[in-house]
């Protein structure tokens, strides 16, 4: 009786979460999976869905130049923003962890961009990178550099995007690292100093290995976040020239109403994120020095 009662209570407490989970997570996932094997323009209603088998996927990888560009770009975004923002975050965290005053104020300076919406930051960066914008102006004044057409040259379009993503992410990495650095025992440094190890050596021999779990965690978080890049590209007006997977999904679904095809693209995104997560699971056991 009591057991039954307990089980009922358990399920009742879970009910709100389960309802939304079923309706807005499980159901969309199943629908999306089914749609990825169809061709469907939603204007034609349910009867307009036609089964295509794996045709969407073969087309994606054999005939769709735009999609391949989006895929390679997204990989580029992920593998530039993640390591760079993590390195900068660690560097600043290390600086702030050292002997400084105004630690909290400085921490705040670095953290502010993280709480700003990406849309607003992308708007600002779109202006910073204009031909007549401040970045070119400063580079010109300091080094006499010619203005670089960051946003007018397709091959350069990815750089402003990477910059704004790094800018927004650094604060987060910094906060996490600062917390992690607090956990590194002081005695280890002191012992190393007694042994005559310089600051660089201390950093690479003690700090880096000890905070490697954090680094690994941040790497996964940043990679996944970068694979979902959309806002920055949409606002900076480069989603046509330097598309990401999500901008491609958006434009196929809501510019061209190719709901089936867009769903197939969505599952490529899911697959990529799945791979990263699996690497995380395996890596957590092997790669990290606890």
């Amino acid at each position, binding site marked *: 009786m009591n057991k039954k009662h307990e089980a009922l209570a358990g399920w009742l407490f879970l009910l709100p979460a389960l309802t939304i989970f079923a309706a807005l997570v499980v159901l969309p996932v199943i629908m999306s999976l089914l749609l990825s094997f169809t061709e469907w323009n939603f204007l034609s209603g349910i009867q307009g869905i036609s089964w295509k088998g794996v045709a969407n996927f073969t087309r994606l990888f054999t005939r769709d130049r735009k999609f391949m560009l989006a895929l390679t770009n997204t990989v580029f975004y992920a593998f530039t923003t993640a390591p760079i923002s993590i390195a900068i975050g660690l560097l600043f965290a290390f600086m702030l962890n050292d002997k400084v005053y105004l630690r909290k104020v400085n921490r705040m300076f670095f953290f502010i961009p993280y709480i700003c919406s990406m849309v607003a930051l992308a708007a600002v960066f779109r202006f910073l990178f204009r031909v007549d914008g401040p970045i070119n102006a400063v580079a010109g004044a300091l080094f006499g550099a010619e203005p670089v057409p960051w946003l007018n*040259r*397709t091959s350069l379009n990815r750089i402003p995007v990477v910059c704004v993503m790094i800018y927004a992410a650094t604060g987060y990495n910094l906060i996490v690292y600062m917390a992690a650095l607090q956990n590194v025992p002081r005695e280890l440094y002191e012992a190393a100093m007694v042994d005559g190890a310089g600051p660089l050596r201390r950093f690479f021999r003690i700090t880096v290995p000890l905070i490697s779990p954090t680094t690994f965690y941040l790497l996964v978080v940043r990679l996944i976040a970068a694979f979902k890049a959309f806002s920055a590209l949409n606002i900076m007006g480069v989603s*046509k020239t330097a598309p990401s997977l999500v901008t491609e999904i958006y434009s196929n679904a809501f510019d061209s109403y190719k709901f089936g095809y867009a769903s197939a693209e969505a599952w490529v995104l899911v697959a990529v994120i799945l791979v990263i997560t699996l690497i995380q699971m395996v890596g957590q056991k092997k790669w990290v020095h606890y």
Partner: protein
Amino acid sequence: MKKLTAILLALVMLASCALALAEAPNTELTGEITFYTAFAGANGTDALIAQFNELYPNVKVNYEVYKNSSDGNVGLDTAIIAGGQVDVLLSFGVSNTAKRWQNGLLMDLTDRLAADGLDLVENWGTDAYQYEGRTYVFPSGGLSVYVAINLDKWEAAGLGELPTAWTWDEYLAACEKLTERDADGKVLVNGGGDFNQIDYWTYAVRQAKGKNVFYNAEGLSDFDNPLFAQALHHEVDAAASGIWHSKAVYQSDSTRSRNLFLQGEIATTIESILTRYIVPGAPTFRIGYAPYPTFEKDQTNYMAGSNPNSFIAVAANTQSPDAAYAFAKFAATYGNKYMYAAGHATTWTGVNPDEVLSVVFGSEEEAAKWVDTESFIRCVVAAGEPAYSEDYIVAYTEMQSLVDEYTMYVLNGEMTVEDALAEMKLLGDEAIEDAR
């Protein structure tokens, strides 16, 4: 005698045409409808509804302003499907509009048009916009593409009378004369420029072809047509020599040709929706107009008239079909002059140019302060001039995005005109074959 008969005949025809359209105030028709448009009340929509209500006082018209972008169009389509929200709509672009009629979102107007004796060609210059032999839209919203000219600079350069027809060579030569440089040769004022939208160079090809710009006779992509290369070369060369404002810069800086023009930073510009911005922009000079240039002398200029660009349609599931049709018909004819208040144009052949001046500027006298009214009527209102049209739209969205993408590569100097067009041809054909 013969002449008299002709005049009489013409009068009868005019009268019958007018009879079919202009009905006396009709108090019997009642209903409440919602009109989806991209233009705010102040940009002509309020005035359009007010004038409609003089004829149909018992039809209440509400309006909703949507954004003609991908999210805005998804919103409109969803609202139509949901039912009860949209009765009449102003639908932009052939591609979006065709999606709507192909999927049964729009009411079949064929029989109502026949009953009213409204002929598409007679009233709007074209019957190209039909689907499987039936008519779903009034092809009434136009875009006239013209060259707007800063008259102060034009006169200062001693260029004389405004041309009533000119070729690209003549226009570019005028731009050269209008370009102002400082002592070091740095360009201060560009002589001209294309409209800032990325695909506008293809309008030159439209001018010459008259129909279905992206497709050849076999229905495949036409990017290997030498006209494309010629048009894109004009664009690139004119920007490189500084006589045109660079389109690449328009894109990256998100600036618009009309603003630079109204601020006197470019002396002329190819434009299509400048009209709405003249009075608020308060230029210090008067504006003159010349027609869109042609490739060759005396070539038919399919850019001279106003090209169908937006369509008035009735939602298939409207609850008040009679009221909705009455409003759509009015908006596509007598009420269509208000398109000019939004900077667009009408293709309706019955438009009265003097009324257009009043709609845009308040009165004819007021208009004369801002623009050279004679060339405005000739090039912007452009009633009865030949116009470009489209009736073949296989893989149209793909064609459009190929143009947008590869134009950027060319403008940025990453690809030559020839390489870009060759690739567009290949990819365009591929997309068309996939779609068929």
